[in-house]
């Protein structure tokens, strides 16, 4: 009896975990445009962010520049306020190139995670994956789900302003990372917060210039 109770408790716990977050979403088929628009757009301009990266108690602060060099070719460079380059990334089509990195950042797990986070923000190569559209219970937000195989990204777009306000990255229906995009000015989110739920990593990007 005791075991049965325990088992059913565990089953409830597991099922509520896996369904809890995304189970309430309603699928809609009426929305044709089923890909979120990239926040950076196709404009070849540079974007300069004051950036803070907090990882397991350590904090790195500096300036992050993103620039689209060609269609599907982005360069992302992070320097300290004093001008010292910390890393230099290139995202071209589906290839990532690490051009430079200081020893403090040269740890595979950290670099890989930051790279993946920036990739999510750049919203490149979404077309090649299958997508479906949902709405929330209140019908105020459209949610586009894009399936990358191992992970799924949920793009939350408010229906009124048509702004991308959140991206959630999930693995096996569990939320791994939340990207919060706020303070929209001229159609661009001036504050971006990347919060990891399974590791102690938080990245804050505040737009200084574009």
């Amino acid at each position: 009896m005791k075991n049965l109770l325990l088992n059913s408790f565990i089953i409830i716990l597991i099922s509520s975990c896996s369904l809890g977050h995304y189970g309430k979403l309603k699928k809609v088929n009426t929305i044709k445009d089923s890909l979120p628009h990239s926040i950076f757009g196709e404009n070849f301009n540079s974007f300069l962010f004051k950036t803070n990266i907090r990882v397991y108690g350590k904090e790195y602060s500096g300036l992050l520049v993103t620039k689209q060099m060609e269609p599907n070719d982005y360069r992302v460079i992070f320097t300290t306020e004093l001008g010292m380059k910390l890393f230099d990334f290139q995202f071209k089509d589906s290839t990532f190139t690490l051009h430079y990195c200081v020893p403090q950042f040269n740890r595979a797990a950290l670099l890989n995670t930051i790279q993946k986070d920036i990739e999510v923000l750049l919203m490149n190569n979404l077309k090649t994956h299958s997508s479906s559209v949902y709405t929330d219970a209140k019908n105020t937000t459209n949610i586009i789900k894009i399936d990358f195989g191992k992970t799924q990204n949920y793009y939350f777009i408010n229906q009124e302003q048509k702004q991308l306000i959140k991206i959630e990255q999930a693995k096996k229906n569990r939320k791994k990372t939340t990207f919060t995009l706020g303070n929209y000015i001229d159609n661009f989110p001036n504050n971006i917060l990347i919060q990891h739920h399974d590791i102690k990593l938080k990245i804050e990007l505040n737009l200084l210039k574009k």
Partner: protein
Amino acid sequence: MNKIITLIISLFVSSIFAQVPAGYKAVKETDGFKQKMEEQSKLINSIESDFTQEKYLSVMSEKIITKGHFLFKKVNMLRWEYTEPLKYLIAINKDKMFIKDNGKVSKYDINSNKMFKSINEMMMSTVNGTLLNNKDYQPSYFENDKLYLIELTPLQKGAKDFLKVIQLYVQKTDYAVVKVKMIEPGDDYTTIEFTNRKTNQPISDEKFIVK
């Protein structure tokens, strides 16, 4: 024909001595210059100035321009404050370093961290010109009619990885450092230009403590 030969020879010669920057010639009396520079820096007890920093990222053909204000007071006190387009403050008070970022103050012991130590050395010597006597750099001296240009080539392996040369531009009239250019092994560089420089004005010690 002679002209062409002269041109070829001069091109050849200039490529051998390519280290001499355009518009400058080598300083003959380097000892005299160094002595004068030291004498002048001894007369300075404090400096206050605005600065404009330009970080050039060659792959993007992009300049990140930041501006701010700095204060220096003998011995070993420095306040380096960015005001545009971001608010960020570094203050060095003897062996303590403060960083104020997003309203949050962090305090460090300079000797606890190799990077802070080199930031401190770099900033201090940039401001008062003592980098000339630093054994970690090989100096070369150039001049034109208005400026001295000191090129410092790092000798240590660690520094060489991210720094090709530091150029200090020193005004002939008062031996003030008016511009610093740090060139990296790629084509990237950072320049810092100083304007509205005032020396030996009273500056309160409070300015070098950040709360």
